[in-house]
């Protein structure tokens, strides 16, 4: 026969289980809007029954575990997609800025200034004797060179800005790396007694997802059960409680990779050689590096090439001509020695700056009306002098703009697409792990009823005991 004490215990187990469930429900409601939170459920099971003769009697309930409702594969998929998302996002920012430097839909840009320069020269063909026309020609040349300087400076600014973002992203990544290692430690400690630490795991998943946005990472659990995070194709960032931090270093310019002078390199601690810049792909860092070195670097390089060819070709033709002053062999632009930095250093020569009358128009000395050099200069605008004889100055410049615009256009597309993918995956995750207040409210009512009923059981047990005790009296 079951003792009434046993009934007390059964009731107590019910009370305890309901209270646990209620507090878990409260926890869920409280965290309904916590980023990365997975709803939690109480796993209840019957406690060990006791045998009484030919009867096996239940002894109530037991809380086996509080676990989070979560799909690990989905989390990994999200982390994996986040690297593209981060990459495209950073590229979008960089490319939008860059294409705006070249945007001349509403204002005068280099395209128009090149034509303006040639036009001013053509104007001189009517009155090759005129000093005032020479002065306006010189003015348009100065305008053109300052536009080269403007674009050059703006591109450098964008690159510097990217470096600052790289530096910030590396800092952010290091925080996350440290946090993951720390959480690994805590989770290990918490779970020594069995069961899982749902909140800590949520936090770690969130940190990994964020790290995955910054760089392409791969996740694994090693033979000792340590959770590891590696920079894909490079090396481990976190192994259990150990971690390696990233750091940045200012480096020399590299024409091969397109890195600008003073651009940052990314390095990893405890790696030989530590430089990982070229091995980083994807994530914010990958997007930033690609924007800085490949996309903007290339535009920069092409701008230099244009400035160099423009200056040199014009000088070459100009030197052969004679001016109103009778001078010949004069450079229009200060001579350039290398392509690198040409856009920065292109300016009119000292001779032209000092006296506009040394600007040549003719092919013969002592012939103030000779305007035949202008013919050759004018032809330069339409001559295929760039890219090994396939493009004019205009073509070359337009192609540079188009390349950037196309990259930006394409990136906007994939960013939109990737945003959809990520949104969709997050939606799936929320539908699995997210808190539904309706559901929790229902649970609240349900568990409250269970609690009430369990209390009733104890009350009944109490009454039974009292009845028994009062029998003697």
């Amino acid at each position, binding site marked *: 026969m079951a003792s009434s004490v046993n009934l007390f215990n059964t009731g107590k187990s019910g009370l305890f289980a309901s209270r646990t469930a209620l507090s878990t429900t409260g926890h869920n409601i409280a965290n*309904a809007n916590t980023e990365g939170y997975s*709803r939690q459920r109480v796993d209840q099971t019957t406690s060990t029954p006791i045998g009484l003769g030919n009867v096996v009697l239940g002894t109530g309930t037991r809380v086996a575990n509080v676990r989070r409702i979560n799909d690990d594969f989905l989390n990994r998929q999200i982390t994996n997609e986040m690297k593209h998302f981060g990459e495209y996002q950073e590229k979008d920012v960089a*490319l*939008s800025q860059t*294409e*705006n430097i*070249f*945007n*001349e*839909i509403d204002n005068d840009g280099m*395209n*128009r200034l*090149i*034509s303006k320069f*040639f*036009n001013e020269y*053509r*104007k001189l*063909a*009517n*009155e*090759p*004797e*005129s000093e005032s026309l020479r002065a306006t020609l010189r003015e348009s040349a100065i305008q053109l060179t300052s536009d080269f300087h403007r674009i050059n400076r703006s591109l450098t600014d964008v690159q510097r800005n990217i470096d600052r973002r790289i530096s910030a992203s590396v800092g952010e990544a290091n925080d996350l790396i440290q946090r993951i290692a720390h959480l690994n430690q805590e989770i290990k400690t918490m779970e020594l007694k069995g069961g899982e630490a749902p909140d800590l795991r949520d936090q770690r998943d969130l940190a990994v997802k964020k790290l995955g946005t910054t760089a392409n990472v791969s996740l694994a659990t090693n033979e000792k059960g340590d959770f590891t995070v590696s920079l894909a194709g490079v090396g481990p960032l976190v192994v259990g409680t150990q971690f390696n931090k990233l750091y940045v270093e200012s480096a020399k310019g590299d024409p091969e990779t397109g890195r600008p002078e003073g651009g940052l390199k990314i390095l990893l601690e405890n790696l030989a050689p530590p430089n990982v810049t070229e091995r980083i792909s994807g994530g914010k860092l990958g997007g930033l590096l690609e924007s800085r070195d490949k996309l903007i670097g290339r535009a920069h390089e092409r701008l230099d090439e244009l400035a160099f060819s423009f200056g040199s070709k014009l000088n070459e033709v100009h030197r052969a001509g004679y001016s109103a002053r009778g001078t010949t062999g004069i450079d229009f632009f200060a001579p350039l020695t290398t392509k690198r930095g040409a856009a920065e250093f292109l300016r009119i020569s000292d001779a032209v700056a000092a006296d506009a009358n040394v600007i040549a128009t*003719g092919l*013969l000395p*002592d*012939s*103030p*009306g*000779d*305007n*035949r050099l*202008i*013919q050759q200069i*004018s*032809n330069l*605008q*339409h001559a295929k002098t760039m890219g090994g004889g396939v493009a004019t100055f*205009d073509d070359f*410049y*337009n*192609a540079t*703009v*188009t390349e*950037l*615009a*196309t990259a*930006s*256009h394409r990136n*906007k597309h994939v960013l939109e697409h990737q945003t959809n993918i990520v949104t969709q995956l997050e939606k799936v995750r*929320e*539908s*699995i792990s*997210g*808190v*539904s*207040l309706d*559901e929790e*409210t229902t649970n609240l009512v349900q568990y409250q009823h269970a609690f009430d009923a369990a209390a009733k059981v104890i009350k009944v047990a109490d009454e039974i005991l009292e009845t028994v005790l009062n029998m003697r009296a």
Partner: protein
Amino acid sequence: MRVSDNTSAGSVKDALRRTRGRLERLQIQNATQKKLVTPSDDPAGNSKILDIRTQATVNSQFANNGAMAKNRLQFADTALNELYDIFVRAKEIAINQSSGASASVDSRLGVAQEVTALYQQLLSIANRRVGEQYLFGGFKTLSAPYTPTGEYRGDNGEMPIEIQKGVYVPINVPGPVAFQIQRYKSEDQARSPAAVDKTQNSAAAPGEPPPSEQQGVPSIETIDAFKEIDALRVGLLTNDTITIRDTMERLDELIKNTITVRAKVSARSNSIDQAIGASEKADLSNAELATQIEDADYTELWSNLAKEETILRSSLSAAQKLIQPTLLDFLK
């Protein structure tokens, strides 16, 4: 499918983000009246626009050049017209004074005064200036091309002006073209017209002596306006009817030459007009293309704006219905 609160909130946010994004784009298009706002909106279109702009800018300069050139040619034409009058008058005098019937020693002496005046007129035309520039000096535009004795100090330079991509028209007539004729001596008369033309063309290199009269090559004579008028004057003064008669035929050549040169000058004006016309046509069709590429289409823009606004309203009201009620509202 299980729907959590974050799922529905996320859906609402996502829908609003999209609609707002599209509306924002339409607003910018509406404000700028352009559908091409940044190069990445249409990279190929942007490239085409840049191309069209270059062409338009260059064409406008060609048009300006053409207008200036026409003005200059007009001056040359006027000068040539006056030249023609001088030669015609001189020839009249020569015809009148060469026969004994209509003229006498006295009349010749009297008319010689007029011929002297004609010579001065000729010299003033030859040294005429437009602004700073001497019209007939070739490239030597800043110094008087003819000395009082009719010696040429200029060169044979023709100033080319670009009126269309790669198309050049000379805007000046060097003195020797207007005031001199080179022709084969009368025994080769049959071949001369074409040959004269040729020598004129090849005389483009200034400073080079006219083709010399070498052995085998038919000898060339030069008719010079100053010399002829002067010869006429001397003939009249000396009462030398043979010289006077001789000038008649040469003055005739000069008249013919003036007509030819004027025809050439007006042909240049015509080709400038044609080139400008062609550029204007190209500009027009380019402008049409540019409009298609970069300008916003009102009807489309407004209907899209209206559409997006409706979508925004309906997603907002859907959001209101979706977010508000929870079980808690019914448990009170």
